[in-house]
């Protein structure tokens, strides 16, 4: 049971750097460096060693790392853990902040309609290029050449 759950968690471990865009229907854990935009329908857990630059759009977020710049949008609960550093704005439905969490930016409560608008703006641009029809077309091209 735990194994199947584990498989659905994407992970950027410590000692890893990623630059670009991530879209996932599942959970994600970041302990390394992330630079770009993250869009998840699940939970983001950013560990103590995580360094995040860019926009994060998630259902739930547990944040213990460092955000150098960017904005966090959370549909449900944003939890800023002790020792985290956030240089940027945070938008959330519910917010929990531990003692010793550092925030330099604006806090704003977000309702569902606002979040959906932001999530829809972020997701379609990246989803389209990898959509299934485009790939089948390419495969057909190659098959045609072989014949």
């Amino acid at each position, binding site marked *: 049971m735990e194994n199947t759950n584990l498989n659905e968690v994407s992970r950027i471990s410590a000692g890893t*750097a990623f630059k670009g865009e991530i879209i*996932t229907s599942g959970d*994600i854990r970041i302990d390394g460096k992330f630079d770009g935009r993250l869009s998840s329908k699940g939970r983001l857990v950013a560990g103590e060693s995580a360094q995040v630059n860019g926009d994060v759009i998630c259902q739930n977020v547990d944040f213990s790392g460092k955000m150098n710049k960017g904005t966090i949008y959370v549909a449900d609960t944003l939890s800023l853990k002790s020792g985290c550093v956030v240089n940027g704005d945070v938008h959330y439905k519910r917010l929990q902040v531990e003692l010793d969490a550092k925030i330099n930016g604006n806090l704003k409560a977000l309702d569902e309609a606002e979040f959906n608008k932001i999530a829809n703006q972020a997701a379609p641009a990246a989803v389209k290029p990898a959509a299934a029809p485009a790939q089948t077309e390419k495969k057909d091209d190659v098959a045609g050449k072989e014949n």
Partner: protein
Amino acid sequence: MNASNTSSNMADVNRVAYGAEFVGDLATANDIRIDGKFDGRLYCEGRLVVGEKAVIKGDIFGTDIDFSGTMTGGNIYTRETLSLKGGCSVHGDLYFQRFQVELDAKFTGSCKVLEEGEYAKIAAPVAALLK
């Protein structure tokens, strides 16, 4: 939640889960497992395992690579051993020191054995992301 309660060994493995899509460049000193979609350049100093459902577009660099997924465009550069598993589908060129192919692996492209130092040279632009 379970994402934070895994052993330290598991935590070192990067993972692109099924249902996840990474677009961009990724560089790591550790291992990677991919079951989702990856579009971009990938550099891995450890073992790179590409699962059956994985779809990759772009150049990938790994010390050892086990490939069971689909490569729609891009080359595979391997420092040591490249292993194409049964059921995989690769459109692109393969570079390696040692090479192993299972029955039922589909492969369209050319193969080349890398010379000493060649791998590091080709991988350098992506590996720079780690610095």
